[in-house]
């Protein structure tokens, strides 16, 4: 059995989302396979962020279906998607500066102490969270060791690292990275790209939304090209050059039949 024949981890068929007269998603297909980094690229206004929102539960499509491990899912909110094991890392460093790393990793999912201290007094199990966070930090090499360090003392790349660690800790099925390097410098972007690779190598597939072609070509196994609200092509970065991919994105180049049908 080849990879292409296996059930995709996350799949969408014929997604449509209308905002009044505006059609943000116009019958889009999507397919993420196990163990891959799939880059999603598209011009501004191509509707790729609407597509990603539909996959992460941030918007509910009007038509079409989403399948997780082959089974249909209906996300009403990002919480639904998270509970299903889909985590998203956002470009704007979605961490709380004044809280420490452990608190940020567990933000919104805090662990409480067992017994009456937790149930009646709602007391946090800070130690358990610290230890687990330290484990996650050690697993992904982001150059921070102490989970009690306040996030505001970290560099931009390290802050994004904390967001990635959080996603990796809870994203059992899929991790979506929405322009994770947009707010970062060159060196720090490199660290995040490295983290993406680490996560894939641990077995979790990653969806990478990026404008940065060199990054996309560096790390992506396949590239989903989004145009006019739908999937225009899926290409193999080894077979296409950056300028060809940009031409596909703008419509200057027609995809091959295979690419248009969902790629290699």
């Amino acid at each position, binding site marked *: 059995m080849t990879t292409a024949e296996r059930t995709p981890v996350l799949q969408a068929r014929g997604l449509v989302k209308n905002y009044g007269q505006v059609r943000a998603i116009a019958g889009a297909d999507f397919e993420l396979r196990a163990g891959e980094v799939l880059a999603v690229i598209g011009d501004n206004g191509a509707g790729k962020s609407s597509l990603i929102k539909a996959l992460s539960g941030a918007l509910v499509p009007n038509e079409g279906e989403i399948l997780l491990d082959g089974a249909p899912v209906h996300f009403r909110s990002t919480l639904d998607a998270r509970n299903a094991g889909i985590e998203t890392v956002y470009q704007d*460093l*979605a*961490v*709380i*500066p*004044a809280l420490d790393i452990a608190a940020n990793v567990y933000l919104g999912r805090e662990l409480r102490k067992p017994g009456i201290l937790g149930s009646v007094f*709602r007391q946090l199990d800070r130690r358990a969270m610290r230890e687990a966070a330290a484990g996650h930090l050690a697993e992904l090499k982001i150059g921070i060791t102490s989970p009690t360090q306040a996030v505001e003392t970290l560099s931009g790349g390290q802050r994004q690292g904390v967001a990635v660690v959080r996603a990796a800790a809870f994203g059992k099925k899929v991790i979506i990275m929405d322009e994770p390097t947009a707010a970062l410098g060159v060196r720090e972007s490199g660290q995040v790209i490295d983290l993406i690779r680490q996560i894939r190598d641990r077995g979790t597939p990653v969806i990478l939304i990026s404008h940065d072609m060199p990054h996309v070509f560096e790390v992506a196994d396949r590239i989903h090209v989004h145009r006019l609200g739908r999937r225009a092509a899926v290409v193999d970065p080894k077979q296409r050059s950056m300028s060809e991919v940009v031409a596909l994105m703008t419509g200057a180049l027609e995809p091959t039949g295979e690419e248009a049908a969902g790629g290699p």
Partner: protein
Amino acid sequence: MSALTFQRLLREPLAGPLAALVVACVVFFILTPQFATGYNISLILQQSMVIGILAVAQSLIILTAGIDLSIGATCVLGTVVLAKVAGTDPVLGMVVALGVCVLIGAVNGALVTVLKLPPFIVTLGMFTIVAAATQLYAGSQTYRVADGPLTALGTGFSLFGFPLTLGLLVLLIVYAVAWYVLNRTATGRHVYAVGGNPVSASLAGIKTSKTIFGVYLASGVIAAIAAWAALGRIPTADPNAFQTANLDTITAVVIGGTSLFGGRGSVLGTLVGALIVGVLRNGLTLVGIDNLYQNIATGVLVIAAVALDQISRRRLQ
């Protein structure tokens, strides 16, 4: 002390306010022999009590990057309701006063979270409304309350020969509860998160509206407790009392190192901040400095505290 420990101490947010409190105490101790007497220290605590309790509520709200300009007026309305309703039945009076204060907090919270109005405007409007409503309800009169449950928090006791009141005990309990919630529960973390970065907080699955509504509701409860404590200290409900309470609570919070921009600070700092203001006012009175100069000193302190906060924030960025 090693250099590292000292550096950590400098970064400790409580260090500044505590140092200021100690310096103020030492200066007044040197300047006047009356300052460091048991009686005077007890007096400072009594004078700081109502503002100190209200400042807990102000801290919670400011931590979410909000502000409550109506809390002093709410507390005053609370005292008048207590005095008027409790004339017939003290328990009913307490229930009604608590209900009125909580209702005011709930309306503030609803306007801030549902209509997304700026807290400054909402609570400024609420301050005006509540202050006027209090005057109307009180008929611009003061009400003396009889000894009993309403003045219970004025009951004195002696700890190692040091005169204290039940009201101070209540103050400590309010601070302890707020500290516990902020530092040991998920709710507390969400308060910091919502104030520090509301978008990130909501992306992390925190119900930001619920958190913000909660602090305004808590503000109402705390205002009612402060009203009760106020009658314990002075058993008269006066619609003209605590005119500067709103600003005094903000002063205590800011001097205590909590950032007006939200997400950063502690209630322990606020307690120290309230004591600094209390010590300053008391000490300056003892050395014979006019009340108006005390206001000037407090104003300078507030501006200095906010300036320090801004500078340290810029350094972090």
